[in-house]
């Protein structure tokens, strides 16, 4: 089992007010799965993703990642896991401004402690998302769909086991969104585990399993039958 959550609780304390965001969540994800976490806003789905992605520590509960109990991990060890074994794709792309596409993709490598091969690995990642030609563009000179593909290349560059995508199509038009979903499907086919957070049913149906969360509790966890699954095709965008 790649990811195993047991009785995960997350509370936010603000003064005297305690907000219980996750209440006793149990969730297991196997390697190679494509899981969509669904739920209305405020349901705790983002918090769940952040917890699984080591961006946030649970208030209580056990989290086994690749068989290791992560509770005792230091911040630096968690940073190492985020760097090497996890890739993030965010709704708002989060590319560094005033920085080239190539440098953006290289960023995780620079924090990886690896000594060399930055550029060739970053180029390879960009080619795999179909942006091999745009590596020297500035991050603000490309379209939204391209930005998200750069972000995917950045998530891939350290060759992680899991990719977390938080509403990856939320800021995109349908064509660009389809391309992004197609890339995620391809990555899943290659064997990577994908955890997708969305409130959009159509997007969620790309996954082979949908976990629904409401008020901090998992209320439904089902496999998507092949007949229901949606597959996106890469849609070539017309050049600007």
């Amino acid at each position, binding site marked *: 089992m790649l990811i195993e959550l047991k009785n995960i609780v997350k509370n936010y304390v603000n003064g005297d007010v305690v907000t219980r965001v996750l209440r006793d969540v149990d969730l297991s994800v196997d390697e190679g799965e494509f899981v969509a976490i669904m739920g209305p806003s405020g349901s705790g789905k983002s918090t769940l993703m952040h917890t699984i992605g080591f961006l*946030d520590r649970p208030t209580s509960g056990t989290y086994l990642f690749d068989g290791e109990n992560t509770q005792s991990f230091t*911040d630096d060890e968690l*940073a190492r896991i*985020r760097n090497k074994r996890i890739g*993030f794709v*965010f709704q708002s792309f*989060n590319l*560094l401004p*005033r920085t080239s596409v190539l440098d953006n993709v290289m960023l995780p490598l620079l924090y990886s402690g690896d000594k060399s091969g930055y550029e060739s690995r970053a180029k390879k990642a960009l080619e795999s998302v179909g942006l091999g030609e745009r590596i020297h563009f500035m991050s603000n000179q490309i379209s939204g769909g391209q930005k998200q593909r750069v972000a995917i290349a*950045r998530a891939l560059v350290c060759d992680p086991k899991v990719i977390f995508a938080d509403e990856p199509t939320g800021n995109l038009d349908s064509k660009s969104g389809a391309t992004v979903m197609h890339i995620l499907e391809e990555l899943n086919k290659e064997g990577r585990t994908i955890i997708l957070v969305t409130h959009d049913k159509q997007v969620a149906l790309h996954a082979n399993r949908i976990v629904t969360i409401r008020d901090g509790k998992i209320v439904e966890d089902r496999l998507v039958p092949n007949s229901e699954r949606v597959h996106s095709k890469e849609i070539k965008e017309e050049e600007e």
Partner: protein
Amino acid sequence: MNNIYLKQAIRGIKSNPSRTLLTTLGIMIGIGTVILVLSAGEGFKSYINAQVEAFGSNSIIVETSVPASTKARQGGASDSGTANSSATNAVPITTLKIRDVEDMKNIPNVKNAYGASIGQQVVTYKGVSKTTFIFGASAARFDIDKGVIASGRGYDIGEDKSLAQVAVLGSRIATDLFGDSNPLGQLIRVGNYNFEVIGVYESKGSFGPMSEDDEVFIPITTLQKKIQGIDYLIYSVVELADNSKANATKLDIIDTLRRNHYITDPTRDDFKVNTQEESLSVFNTILQAITFLLIAIASISLIVGGVGVMNIMYVVVTERIGEIGLKKALGARGKDILYEFLIEAVLLTIIGGVIGIIGGSFLAFVVSKVAQGAGLAWKFIVPIWGVVLSVSVSMVIGIVFGVFPARNAARLDPIVALNRE
């Protein structure tokens, strides 16, 4: 360490160049002042060195001095009977004589020597009067002193011995009295005597109202016998063959003078002997004190500048919270973020420091040009150690004032930082 820290720091600085410049203003002013002070200090030193060397390089200066034992006794009411009891600082010491100068010439390693006295007199030529210093010196002064006679000649030993009424003028007094006309061969009146002008010095240049350019130089014997009615000297300049033996020669001079003045108790020495190094050390001590004071003032500006950098770094950290969160999500450790911001702060202060070094050097250059314009032997020197010091100080300020904002950034929770975007 890979260069990502530097790269990210440069990117940060480039994001707002005008703010960068404003932020480092305090550092610029502080470092600029330090460089200006150090450079002007070196320039002043070069000027003082030139002044002291003007007495003759490799020289020892012998001055009359109130004995330490007398000074100690001053203010003690009832100590009449001894020869020095009535002496005060205002009463001149009258024991240094031409004979002492002649005896000093016989000391090994002494190449030449002259005695000198100074008096103030009214000097008149064709109704133009000036009150100025009359400088009496042995003819040997023309061999020792570095002053150049622009026209005419100096007096010789024969003229000195024979109480000749001849005078060499400083450049400014010559202009004051004679304007554009040629002073050579003309008679000027000094006190009650007419003196023939036989030479005019080149300008030596100096600050302020009094300088050798205003003085009238006459034979020492003439000054003593005809004008002042005395037989003693105020000081003597001894030229050495080998300056490296200056300290040994100084002891020989002291022995000779004590013997001549019948002094056995060193506290009763009525003279002071200073080698060139000792004369310079007085100036250097004063210079060091002034330099220290000005740098102390400049460091206030550096501290204010450092606080400015700290302030802006806090702002920068707040501005880039989202970016910090992203970097942490991508695997940056707290340490990585700390170094990025620390290096950015150090870069800021170094930029300020370098601009300050350039600005301060430029001002020091202007000062040296002004001083040279006034005829001073003032060199433009920017000490390398001052530049190295300035850059190091800039770096240290960057580290000291950058570390707290950088630590704030490093400690940010990745999710808190990401959510702020």
